[in-house]
């Protein structure tokens, strides 16, 4: 079944995406409050227009979803081109590069948490603790033992998974809100332990953690005269794409179905042969591997980590990203993460009201869209399943 290339649609889609791409870069450059308000007003106007012209906007959306492969290809190409174009376009390029990398790391964290909270219904309030375990593992190993970073990265994930298994022993005996409480306590415990252990640097944390280095290529080198953050940008971009792919594959498989059945009705799932305790454990540990690897990347990039980086507030932020975006909806979670990590950066100009607006968002959105921005999406497994 060879699809003929429809150059006109590809051109249309690419044009729209390139325009949005440049608009986003202009948005990054805006510093005055008024221009920010104008940008937000534009978004609101777009939403209102799409409501008023329901038919037309539906056909536009249909056009884009029908050409999903093209949309994704163009998007990925633009994301890879960004560090090459941005130095010419953006005044505070380094700062925004760092914000984007941090956003990417948050995406991995949120997608990891989604396997636990979104797919399985296990609320993990210790996300930041596992993030920290990954970071401290990588930091300690490379700092104290000189372990190469190609090993510390996976080990960050593995050690986070081991701690996850340890926590799962008391965790699986509890249900619902009590489960959340156990993880909450664990998160607080980890931060306190890090704060009070000399081995991990106590409240000072770990300083001068070596940068990432693969096969002799140091991530501090400047590719083609660009800032060294560019290395991290590409690395995190690849990791995010991998996380999305893995999440998508799990969602569209028996694993996703089994986890959903446990989330929606554990007793019914058990009566069809599902060993719910084992599967909840698998989901918990899978999520923690992703979260731990994200922590290791963060530690190597920033070079300095301390207990406050991994506090409860950080966990709550990641939980909010998942809930705002939409439980068990990958695209929704990506949008939720972008909103909650880029918008606050943008709102630094209105410092006093930043947290206030952020709070309002978290109250208003669940009121009007209880399932998150993008809720339920039918599981299709694969395009060919719906046809045959």
């Amino acid at each position: 079944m060879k699809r003929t290339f429809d150059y006109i649609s590809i051109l249309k889609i690419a044009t729209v995406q390139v325009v949005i791409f440049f608009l986003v870069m202009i948005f990054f450059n805006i510093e005055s409050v008024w221009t920010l308000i104008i940008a937000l007003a534009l978004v609101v106007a777009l939403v209102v227009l799409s409501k008023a012209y329901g038919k037309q906007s539906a056909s536009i959306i249909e056009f884009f979803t029908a050409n999903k492969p093209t949309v994704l290809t163009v998007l990925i190409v633009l994301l890879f081109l960004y560090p090459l174009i941005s130095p010419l376009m953006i005044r505070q390029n380094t700062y925004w590069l760092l914000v984007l990398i941090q956003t990417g790391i948050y995406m991995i964290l949120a997608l990891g948490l989604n396997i636990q909270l979104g797919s399985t219904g296990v609320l993990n309030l210790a996300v930041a603790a596992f993030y920290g375990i990954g970071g401290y593992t990588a930091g300690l190993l490379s700092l104290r033992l000189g372990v190469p970073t190609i090993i510390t990265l996976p080990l960050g994930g593995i050690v986070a998974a081991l701690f996850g298994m340890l926590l799962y022993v008391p965790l699986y005996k509890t249900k619902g809100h009590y489960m959340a409480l156990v993880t909450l306590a664990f998160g607080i415990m980890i931060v306190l332990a890090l704060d009070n252990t000399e081995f991990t640097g106590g409240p000072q944390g770990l300083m001068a953690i070596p940068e990432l280095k693969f096969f002799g290529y140091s991530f501090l080198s400047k590719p083609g005269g660009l800032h060294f953050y560019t290395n991290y940008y590409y690395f995190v971009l690849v990791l995010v794409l991998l996380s999305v792919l893995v999440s998508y594959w799990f969602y569209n498989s028996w694993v996703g179905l089994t986890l959903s059945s446990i989330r929606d009705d554990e007793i019914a799932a058990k009566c069809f042969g599902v060993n719910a305790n084992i599967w909840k454990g698998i989901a918990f540990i899978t999520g923690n591997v992703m979260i731990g690897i994200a922590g290791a990347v963060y530690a190597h990039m920033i070079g300095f980590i301390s207990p406050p980086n991994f506090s409860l507030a950080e966990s709550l932020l990641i939980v909010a990203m998942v809930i705002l975006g939409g439980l068990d909806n990958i695209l929704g979670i990506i949008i939720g993460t972008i909103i909650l990590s880029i918008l606050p950066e943008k709102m630094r100009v209105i410092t006093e009201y930043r947290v206030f607006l952020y709070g309002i968002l978290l109250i208003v959105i669940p009121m009007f869209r209880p399932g998150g921005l993008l809720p339920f999406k039918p599981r299709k497994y694969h395009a060919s399943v719906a046809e045959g």
Partner: protein
Amino acid sequence: MQDTNRRIFYSENLEMNFGGLYALAGINFEIFENEAVGLIGPNGSGKTTFFNVITGVYKATGGSFHFMNESLLGKEPYEIAKKGISRTYQSSRLCLKLTLLDNILIGMYNNQTAGYFSSIFNRKKLIAEVKNFKKRAVELLDVFNPELIPKLFNPVGELPQIDRRRVEICRAMAGEPRIILLDEPSAGMTPDETTELMDDIKKVRSTMKNVSIMIVEHDMSVISSVSERVIAINFGKEIAKGTYEEVSNHPEVREAYLGKEV
């Protein structure tokens, strides 16, 4: 005819004690191959508790129960399900947010061979299996209500009550169990819908070989038309058994349902 059939399930003095209250006070019960048994009794007589005990949701406090001569006492629900006992529920326990297809596929959990790592490293095998299972789901829906087939990718929550119950029965049948337990399938339905549902249950029997059905009902018409053998219980004890006529005319059964003459 029953004598020639194999006994596949039996319980001996099965007891369920909720802190002094005996919901089941020694039930002796048998299911033979390919038969349909009705279980009747007034509210609170222990019918649903019996289902919950033999599917492992509650742990029996006394007695024993066996499936294919293997004791299931103390086993977890997922272990019992693996042996080939599946059920529906009095109040629907479908995943309302999930699609119709997903709900039926959950019933085939025990037939899955593409596991955790196949979801990532062997997509081909997984997708082939999904297509295979989907074919079976379509076949099942075709028996019950072909109009549901185009709605395969719609959330089950959009369906009316009778179709939800059909999906639930499809889900229970999908894994090709040996025993299907139907817990008040007609609950919350109009008389017309109940008639349709009885036809559905008869269809189950004609399309599936080697399956025994045990049905709990309040609606006597369902019991009389579907089951060959009836057992009546009250206060967790068997009070009568035999054909529908025998049981429904039994004085203790009449008393349990209609009350004692003063």
